[in-house]
């Protein structure tokens, strides 16, 4: 059971190259003149290098203020902040900010600059030469999944909310800062785009290993993204600071439990990712250059009725039925477009959504959006069955699991620690779905 629990308990970045640095807050306090209570009171926490730490809490709890003190958009009243061992309060604040990526809600793009100009701002401030900046811009646009030729010279208002947010992330990453601060960056986009952006952030983070401080009021988002979550209460006091699994399995107090909300066990399902399960490489792929007759022969040989058309970078484009091929002269414009796809970083919950939407199976894409396989409903039910078996095994271990969510959680918390707790609490969820 510990083995199976492993991928869920230790998500990303363990094996990625860590380029981030550690951030330490020591007794950080912010008082505004004329108000009796401090906005942020005596926060001490360590944000480990290369981890994505989510600050989550109700509106007005001071989580954004806490984050903004790290790049000194707000000056702390007292306390110490070190970034990679350097005292942030000693440095020139403008220079400090150039070394810290910053992405905010609604992106805050400069509307009078093109996409490329927006991304180029920080490298420009750092005095890079034109050629290096241009190369970096192309690299970043590619990294966040924006086609360079298509989007380079567009203005922000010509982009969708999701695309703007991608540019915002690219701009924050432009000078390759070790630390990234993100203030509800996906708060203003629709839920579907939001899910995609979250997946891409995880994918990026798996490659880059930055230290990311991410502020949100959405606990589900925190669970999905965080290596660790700090649940904050009034005046930014830390209620619990632990892995998502540990917080879901064993909330430290009533405030955390209230914030986690109902269905904590179900939420744990969202901690399993597509790359943690075996998905088969079922689809027959073809690129648009292939002739329809060749493809038809290949499909006949493979016994396939559908083929997946991919572009030059193997990104899935369209489904072609064998019927479509008889009359077609080229593969360029036939078939129907691929709808929802699932990245290897997506949670099983998202995968399930996509599978249902796509009618039984969904395309799985890799780190650059390329086709890597298919996931279908059997794959997911297989995983669910497996979880249920583990649950039964855990039950016979005598963990006192009554099947009741709260009882299960309490027992796990008292007994075997976070790993065991995660497993035990996941089980009712698996049963319920």
């Amino acid at each position, binding site marked *: 059971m510990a083995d199976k629990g492993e991928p869920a308990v230790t998500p990303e970045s363990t094996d990625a190259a860590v380029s981030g640095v550690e951030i330490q807050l020591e007794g950080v306090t912010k008082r505004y003149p004329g108000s009796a209570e401090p906005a942020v009171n005596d926060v001490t926490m360590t944000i480990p290098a290369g981890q994505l730490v989510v600050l989550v809490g109700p509106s007005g709890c001071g989580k954004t203020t806490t984050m903004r003190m790290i*790049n000194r*958009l707000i000056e702390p009243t007292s306390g110490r902040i070190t970034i990679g061992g350097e005292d942030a309060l000693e440095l020139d604040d*403008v*220079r*400090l*900010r*150039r*070394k*810290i*990526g*910053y992405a*905010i*809600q*609604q*992106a*805050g*793009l*400069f*509307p*009078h*600059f*093109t996409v490329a100009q927006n991304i180029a*701002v*920080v490298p420009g*401030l750092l005095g890079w030469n034109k050629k290096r900046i241009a190369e970096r811009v192309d690299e970043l646009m590619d990294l966040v999944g924006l086609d360079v030729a298509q989007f380079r010279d567009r*203005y*922000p*208002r010509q982009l969708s909310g999701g695309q703007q947010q991608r540019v*915002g992330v690219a*701009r*924050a990453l432009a000078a390759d800062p070790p630390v990234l*601060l993100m203030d509800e960056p996906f708060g203003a986009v629709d839920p579907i785009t939001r899910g995609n952006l979250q997946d891409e952030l995880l994918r990026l983070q798996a490659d880059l290993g930055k230290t990311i401080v991410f502020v949100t009021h959405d606990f589900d988002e925190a669970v999905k993204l965080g290596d660790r979550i700090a649940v904050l209460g009034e005046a930014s006091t830390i209620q619990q600071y632990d892995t998502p699994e540990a917080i879901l399995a064993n909330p430290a107090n009533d405030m955390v439990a209230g914030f986690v909300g109902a269905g904590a066990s179900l939420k744990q399902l969202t901690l399993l990712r597509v790359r943690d399960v075996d998905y088969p490489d079922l689809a027959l792929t073809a690129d648009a250059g292939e002739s329809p007759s060749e493809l038809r022969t290949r499909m006949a040989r493979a016994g396939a009725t559908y083929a997946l058309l991919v572009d030059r970078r193997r990104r899935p484009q369209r489904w072609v039925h064998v019927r479509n091929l008889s009359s077609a002269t080229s593969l360029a414009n036939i078939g129907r477009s691929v709808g929802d796809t699932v990245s290897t970083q997506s949670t099983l919950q998202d995968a399930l959504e996509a599978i249902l939407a796509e009618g039984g199976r969904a395309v799985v894409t890799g780190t650059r959006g390329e086709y890597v396989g298919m996931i279908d409903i059997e794959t997911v039910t297989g995983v669910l069955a497996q979880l249920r078996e583990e649950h039964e095994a855990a039950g016979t271990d005598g963990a006192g699991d009554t099947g009741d969510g709260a009882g299960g959680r309490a027992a796990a918390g008292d007994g075997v620690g976070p790993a065991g707790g995660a497993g035990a609490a996941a089980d009712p969820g698996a049963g319920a779905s």
Partner: protein
Amino acid sequence: MTLFDYVADRWDRLALQSWLHVSEVVQSTLLAAVIGVLIGVAVYRSPVGSAVATGLASTILTIPSFALLGLLIPVFGLGPTPAVVALVLYALLPITRNTIVGLAGVDPAVTDAAKGIGMGRFSVLTRVELRLAWPAILAGMRVATQMLMGIAVIAAYAKGPGLGGEVFSGLTRAGSANATNQALAGTLGVVILALLLEGVYFLIARFTVSRGIRG
């Protein structure tokens, strides 16, 4: 003599007066733009400062131009100086007000992002805020220019340069030969020049306002 013959006959003189008229208005607008933008930048963060600046500029505008010129002549004497001072004062209101409105209208998220990624205070102002407020500032300058084209005519009362001289002299000589032609030529000249400047503003907007924020 028809108006057409009159204009053809006095072309050199009218062209010179037109040139002086435009030059006076454009220079006054530019001067007012520099002052107005500086005032706007100084006060836009404070609601009280903004209200005071706008209020003062509005008060100036309520002073009749004849009266203002009359008040300025004892101080600056006759000639271009009192005319330019009056024109600059009148142009301040639209430019200052539009600068304040333009700067205050910049999305706070954008300035926050600018600061957050490491732009200094001056960069935020010059590369972001003023660039975004520019269409509003330019619109203020346009209104100011149109207004000054008319007021500059009155400024001829203080012996300022421009087509005002033609209008005034035409009106005072009413009844004598070519008096109407002279007044009309001056007035039509002002109208034509105003339209030409309007075209110039259109071109300036076209080339200086980023396509990302053009309306």
